[in-house]
């Protein structure tokens, strides 16, 4: 599960939608979304390393959307989109929350935070993916976007 570059990468701009889902904010559905995303990336010729990184990133972002974005409210929704841009597999996950600034999150690798129990999820997603973005949506909600660039097996 190799680390990715944090900076945006020059992917093709043509977007090929693979699947879009709108589901209830329910922790029991996280594995279904993870399985769908990782099946798709596997079918598109990405490596086992890419699949592992995406499995982690989709799982963490879904948990974040349901528990923190939607505050575990059962009537809230989560919208998920998987799409390709050239050799980049993109994931968008939207919740109904107010969002967060990923640049303001504490660095879990700082000596004073190293033994904290919490605070590693988004940090790891940013490190395992490229083009990580958090965007407030015009009416309500937040969209987290990240992609994984196809790479060779280690």
């Amino acid at each position: 599960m190799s680390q990715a570059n944090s900076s945006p990468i020059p992917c093709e701009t043509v977007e090929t939608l693979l699947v879009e889902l709108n589901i209830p904010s329910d922790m029991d559905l996280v594995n279904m979304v993870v399985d769908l995303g990782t099946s798709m990336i596997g079918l598109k010729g990405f490596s086992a390393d890419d699949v592992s990184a995406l499995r982690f990133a989709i799982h963490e972002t879904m948990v974040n959307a349901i528990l923190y974005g939607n505050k575990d409210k059962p009537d809230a929704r989560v919208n998920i989109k998987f799409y390709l841009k050239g050799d980049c597999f993109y994931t968008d996950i939207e919740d109904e929350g107010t969002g967060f600034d990923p640049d303001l999150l504490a660095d879990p690798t700082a000596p004073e935070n190293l033994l904290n129990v919490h605070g590693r999820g988004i940090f790891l997603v940013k490190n395992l993916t490229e083009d990580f973005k958090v965007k407030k949506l015009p009416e309500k909600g937040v969209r987290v976007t990240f992609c994984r660039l196809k790479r060779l097996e280690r």
Partner: protein
Amino acid sequence: MRVKSRERDGVTILDLSGDITIGQGDVELRKEISELIFNEKKKIILNLRKVDFIDSSGIGEIVRSLTTIQKNGGILKLLHLEAKVRDLFTITRLITVFETFENEKDAVDSFN
């Protein structure tokens, strides 16, 4: 997640398998560690060989295990960090906090 506890030369080894994730494996691991502390076990190894997937809550729970055991005068070491798990521990620099082993005998002998 499933946990099997066994003893080898005075060291308690917890064989973990399955997923260590939010609301599932993390809670079970916490209970297991509390029980070991209650039973005054001081030398503990977490064997991660059969862990399929770990999320940030699972990683946090292993950190909590370390600090809880240390506060109670014990020592925790990790065994068989498979590549995907090792990557996560490397990115978060937790690899610098834990003593890790690839061989069970070496891990057990390191307590003596």
